[in-house]
């Protein structure tokens, strides 16, 4: 069957000359001042992905996320009207934490200090001995909201309850590019997490290029994302959408499965078999439907990497905890397995994926330690690492740490 062949020899710095070619400073990964500015000027100013709508499917279902980047804990709860809302997890009386479980289902939230009670829409509905408060009105003392909006079943939150930009506007054309994929049908989730002793960008950068594939994944994925026509995992497509960015990662159509992988292919889906129909892909993703398509890698600024491919999708998210500490969450989503054979195939794929993530995370803490020494002041970025270049450029546009026109 004829298939579109990707051009994998583009020079991305020629396509996007505005991003330059100079080495990039390491300072944003080790500077406490830079880290503080990121919190104020990025994480408190943009929409952040916090979970899938399927995690709280029924009225009264809630989940609590400890959002260190906002210095707060937030309750996300589905109201009786079916709408998901977000509230700071803090009682209006004397500031006690309201919800202590990390998820659950309830009709109302009752504070364990003095039993102040709030409904799932954040309204204060019960105050014991209320008449002994002074000039007090319950309607003025509901939970403090954060803004929440859904995109394709992805729940985003903004710490400003009245953000100047809607989620749709924030995602812009990037949201359109990735709309229409059957995220809501692929709900069998396998989730990993760990706390990494590195800056969140050291972790993000490691998942933002294909240049590492031959070295780090030489054993786990030996011929999957490289091939005769593309031995160095060059990117067939790179696109920027304001602060967001995306690339296509090459997939070798002549990849030879291992004996166990071949059995998994016969019984179910696979990352490497790419067995799902390309019709699942949004029209703007791999528009020629090339068989050399591996997966689409999109970064929703600042901290979510979303990968889609026929048959499954997976995410990485990086939560800054301190300048040198990051919560990493990796999640893979498959169609709910109908048969034991399909479940076996998913298990095999997830084991290989987990092993690859163990390889990906191997370098990060040592890198942070080395960067902290200050011996190397700049990263040397290759042409194919242009997503990293874009990442630091966009971040600095928000942060404004360096004087304008400086030549760092």
């Amino acid at each position, binding site marked *: 069957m004829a298939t579109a062949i990707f051009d994998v020899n583009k020079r991305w710095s020629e396509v996007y000359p505005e991003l330059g070619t100079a080495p990039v400073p390491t300072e944003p990964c080790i500077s406490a001042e830079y880290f503080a500015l990121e919190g104020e000027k990025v994480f408190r100013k943009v929409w952040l992905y916090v979970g899938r709508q399927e995690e709280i499917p029924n009225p009264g279902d809630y989940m609590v996320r400890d959002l260190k980047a906002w210095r707060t804990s937030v309750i996300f709860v589905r109201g009786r009207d079916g709408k998901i809302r977000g509230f700071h997890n803090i009682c209006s009386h004397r500031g006690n934490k309201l919800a202590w479980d990390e998820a659950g289902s309830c009709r109302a939230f009752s504070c364990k200090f003095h039993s102040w009670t709030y409904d799932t829409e954040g309204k204060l509905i019960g105050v014991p001995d209320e008449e002994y408060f002074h000039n007090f009105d319950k309607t003025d003392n509901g939970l403090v909201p954060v803004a929440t909006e859904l995109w394709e079943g992805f729940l985003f939150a903004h710490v400003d309850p009245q953000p100047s930009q809607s989620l749709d506007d924030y995602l812009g054309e990037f949201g359109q590019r990735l709309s229409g994929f059957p995220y809501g049908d692929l709900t069998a989730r396998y989730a990993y997490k760990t706390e990494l002793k590195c800056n969140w960008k050291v972790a993000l950068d490691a998942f933002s290029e294909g240049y590492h594939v031959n070295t780090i994944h030489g054993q786990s994925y030996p011929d999957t994302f490289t091939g005769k026509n593309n031995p160095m995992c060059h990117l067939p497509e790179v696109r920027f959408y304001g602060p967001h960015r995306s690339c296509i990662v090459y997939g070798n159509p002549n990849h030879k499965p291992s004996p166990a992988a071949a059995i998994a292919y016969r019984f179910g889906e696979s990352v490497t078999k790419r067995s799902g129909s390309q019709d699942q892909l949004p029209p703007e993703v791999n528009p020629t439907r090339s068989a050399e398509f591996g997966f689409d890698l999109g970064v929703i600024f600042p901290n979510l990497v979303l990968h889609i491919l026929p048959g499954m999708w997976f995410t990485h998210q990086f939560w800054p905890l301190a300048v040198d500490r990051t919560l990493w969450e990796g999640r893979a989503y498959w169609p*709910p397995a109908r048969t034991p054979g399909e479940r076996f195939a998913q298990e095999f794929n997830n084991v*290989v994926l987990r092993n690859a993530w163990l390889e990906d995370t191997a370098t990060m803490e040592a890198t942070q330690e080395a960067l902290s020494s200050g011996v190397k002041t700049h990263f040397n970025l290759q042409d194919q690492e242009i997503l990293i270049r874009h990442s630091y450029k966009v971040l600095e546009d928000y942060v404004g740490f360096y004087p304008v026109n400086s030549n760092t």
Partner: protein
Amino acid sequence: MGTSLLPTPFADLDVFAASWSLGTQRERENKRAASSAGELKTMYEVLLPRLDAMLEHLDQYALDKLPADAQRLFYVTLSFAEIAPFVECYNGEPKVRHSFEERRLIAVHGERRGQRGRAQWLMWTSNNSRREFSA
């Protein structure tokens, strides 16, 4: 129907049912990490040629309606999924080479038995998600 732990066609593999019929990914990971290269290679070589037949046998049942002996066989196939990449990619070594400390990488789903589709996923998410959302 004899005294085998496994369905009759696989009764000769009882030794694997006794040690590798493990219902959660956490248990399978721990067992693999504590095994020797020789043990993993032997298991791989014995099970690989039988795996198609095992999965075909299992696929006559719905995922959530496996008889007890087939359930044990199913968990053995999941254990095979756990160990096979270590034989195929790392010469049987029970650890990924040049990797992050595996014990620090938490499989949030790793305590669950099986995964039977949307209804179960949702039930699990809302009832038992303490581990899932701890940040």
